[in-house]
């Protein structure tokens, strides 16, 4: 009985989070703020469903289900990266350095900064011998 209540509560909570997340997606004014809605709220929402599912299988079916853990793992791995990329793309396309707060370090925002990654003119091990421009 308690288990049922617990699972139901989890499901309801997940539903609310999902709803709030979707609502936020509609309501929030610009992309940067809107990004919070699905990535945060929906993650918790889906997480709630997954925990509920695990609890259900453990208590009522008597077996430990690992699928949900894996789903959680992948969700936690992909959601932030997706958000990060969307934000980066947004900064890249829509914003200039003036629109952004100062980073506080000596570095600029990575997305805006011209790459200072160490580079070399020719690759050492690509299946192509280094070619001069003028060889043809």
């Amino acid at each position: 009985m308690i288990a049922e209540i617990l699972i139901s509560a989890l499901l309801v909570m997940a539903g609310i989070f999902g709803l709030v997340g979707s609502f936020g997606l509609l309501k929030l004014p610009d992309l940067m703020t809107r990004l919070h809605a699905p990535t945060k709220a929906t993650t918790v929402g889906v997480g709630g469903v997954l925990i509920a599912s695990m609890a259900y299988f453990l208590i009522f079916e008597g077996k430990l289900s690992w699928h949900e853990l894996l789903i959680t793992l992948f969700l936690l791995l992909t959601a932030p990266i997706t958000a990060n990329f969307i934000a980066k793309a947004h900064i890249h396309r829509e914003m200039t350095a003036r629109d952004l707060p100062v980073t506080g370090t000596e570095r600029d925002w990575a997305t805006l900064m011209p790459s200072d990654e160490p580079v070399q003119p020719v690759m050492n091990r690509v299946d192509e011998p280094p070619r001069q421009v003028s060889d043809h």
Partner: protein
Amino acid sequence: MSLALIAALPFLGALLPGLMIRAGRNACAMTTGFVTALALLMLGLHAPAVLRGEVIQTRIEWLPGLGLNANFFLDGLGLLFAGLILGIGLLIILYARFYLSKSDPMGQFYTYLMLFQGAMVGIVLSDNILLLLVFWELTSLSSFLLIGYWKHLPEGRQGARMALTVTGAGGLAMIAGMLILGNIAGSYDLTVILQNKEAIQASEWYLPALILILLGAFTKSAQFPFHFWLPHAMAAPTPVSAYLHSATMVKAGLFLMARMWPVLAGTPEWFYIVATTGLVTMVLAAKIALFKDDLKALLAFSTVSHLGLITMLLGFGTKAAATVAMFHIINHATFKAALFMSAGIVDHEAHTRDIKRLGGLRHLMPVTFAIALIASLSMAGIPPLNGFLSKEMMLEETAHTVWAGSHWLMPVLATLGALFSVAYSFRFLAHTFLGPVRDDYPHKPHDPGFGMWAAPALLAALVVIIGLVPMTAAGWLVDAAAGAVTGEPVAAKIKHWHGLGSPALWMSVLAVGGGLMLLASHARLDAIWNATPRPEAKRIFDGIVEPLAALARRVTAISHDGSLTRYLAIATVTITALGYYAWATADHGTGTRALTPIQTVPAIGWFLLVVSSLALVAFHRNRLLTLVLVGVIGLMVSVGFAYMSAPDLALTQISVEVATVILLLLALNFLPKTTPVESSGGRKLRDGLIAAFGGTGVGVLIYALMTRDFAFPSIAEYHLANSYKEGGGTNVVNVILVDFRGYDTFGEITVLGIGAIVIYALTEALLRGGPANDRLLAWSPDQRRAGDRHPLMLVVATRLMLPVALIVGVYIFLRGHNMPGGGFIAGLVVAIALVMQYMASGFAWTQARQKIDYHALIGAGVLIAAATGIGAWFNGVPFLTSDFGYVNIWPLEEFELATAALFDLGVFLTVLGAVMLALASLSRIAIRAGETINVDAFDIHPENDGPRTEPATTTTEAR
């Protein structure tokens, strides 16, 4: 097996010269010669049996349903021709080694020569006319390569084209003739056809078949009026001319007539068509030969003339004439090959083959002179050489042949031909070698090395030997060959002296005397000849071919203009129209199966699919959006597969979708981001209508299909019932892929591998210079680049996921046989895991960390799959039959091992290699376009967050 092997040996040998040329020209020639010698030896081993009158057969079923079997047989005729082809081939290989200059690609030459040799041997050994046709066409193709060997010479290319057009067209006619013949006889096997003389000659289809087959034979053997291609083929290197025009290619037509002699000959039609054509060709070509100044052209027309002679003899349809024909084939091959080779030597040494610029060479080139002397005297028919013997016998035959009631027409014309023959033979000899030594040769000639004159000298020796002791040297072979042609035992009596009463003697005397007189007045006749207008064969040929080619080009321009839209429109309209026709003209009721109710979730999926497709049409100019929409459609389709209980398909679809979208995104980097407006409104409407009709048609068809039960029992039942029993797996889809239809899969991975290598090759060509390369070099990004190309979070995540993804790949691979999965999906999963590394950490960084060559991966995949398939042979079962068993290894549970898993490993490797090679190719384009090479996995390294380096500081300040 041995006969098939003789025919196959030259083809296998064709692979060697290309490799052996790396070891030097001698090694190359010796290898080629060795293969030919081996084939000749194998043929020789059969000779005693054949000479005893046995017929050796090898039967291999190839496509029995079509009546096409790889059946070979060897009788006296085959022995004669195969011996000539291989024997003279061997001499040609020796001669060519010294003839070809250093700048000629010798490996290529020998490869072509071996291909040609194999095709010729195939023709003469075939016991199936369809197989014979295959080899026949192969000789046309390979002789095209040989004649056009000097690609830089326009005459060579044009000559090759002309030879291919004429002989190829004849070959097409012959295919029709052979099919008719096979139909009448009820079998395509020669040995059966040859038994059916009465049925064939009585058939109303006899004449069409005869004409069509003779068209093939006449074009190949350069008979009037198709003789014109042969002199133009003289643009080939001399070894080619010597080979093609003495012993092989042009004799193929004669061989065919001899082969078909038992069933086709003996009728008036045969006599009048064949004997007349032969006679006309003989006289006409001999006359033209007399006025040719080019040594090889002279020999070319003399070849045409002698071919006409043999054709005429075959046309007589008598046993005696056929015997003479066989004898003359041997003689002609020996003296003509020797003559071509000596002409080649003269050309090689004096740098000209123009008779008018030669003369007096006997002092400078005594050895060559001796060879040419013997050979040309034989060609002229001077006793006691072999040419004399067969010419006498030929004249004897004509002497008692009646042509349309006339007793004198045949002998007179034949004597005239012989007379011309004497004249041009002596002209070849006298104007090249006799006379005073000149001082204006383009190059001071002298005798070549032994290697070059060895081959013609050997042939000249044969000319003398056959001439002196014909019965010992050639009689047995003539008997065997003529016996095979006529189907009755033959005992030829070849002798020099037939007595004063023989008409041939006087005809011969007349020919020699007249010929010498003609030669004496050659200068005057030459002037008349040059003054008379003649039809120029090449101009006529071009006049026919050019308009045809133009017509072909016009038709092609309409139907094959390279526009995908047009192809799709034509195909769609045709298929829809045919479908509609079928639907409108046949009875059909409504379906018997009840419709299932529409459920909500699938309906949503369907709706998404429809909306994405419509959006794709609407937004197709924005390529990025298009790609996203394609991805959405792909995902919906895979969800659909999963819903319809096809997990294998769903997995494959989803991984294919991911891999394609990633690769296309990378490619899009270098493409315009929008598609320009190309079609007018009317065109859009037209295409839209076609698309709508096509789509509706397919929709209606599927609806009709799904509301009915199958008309035939489905093959699915068989697969379901046997997948575990025979394939050892419970995942039917996988068992179909690796077992039931394993051969298809093998073909598919091969194609996939080829596809990937083509991508690589295209990239290679693109980067090798030219406008595309220039554009890449001048390329500047059309969009602002992000500063942070390799974001920390992505790099860490992908690296974290790599082992997991690899384990998943292995897992999917291993379980594939019994549960959804398999090599194809596993390959894609692993490829995606690796592609993610490349995307996250950069190409160079990742590439530096793996040591596998993707080409090798593809090759290894196909080879492993092939080896697995071949492994089945060792168990005595057909290719790709899989085997499985259960293994117990402590401490594991009992598990199954199937050879299919090995095959699947091949699939896995090929798929992996193909995707990665495509990625590598795209990366190479990026690097050429100026993409810099990263050394670190990250752009912004947390460890570097210390004091700033100079350039970065300036950026900060600039802000």
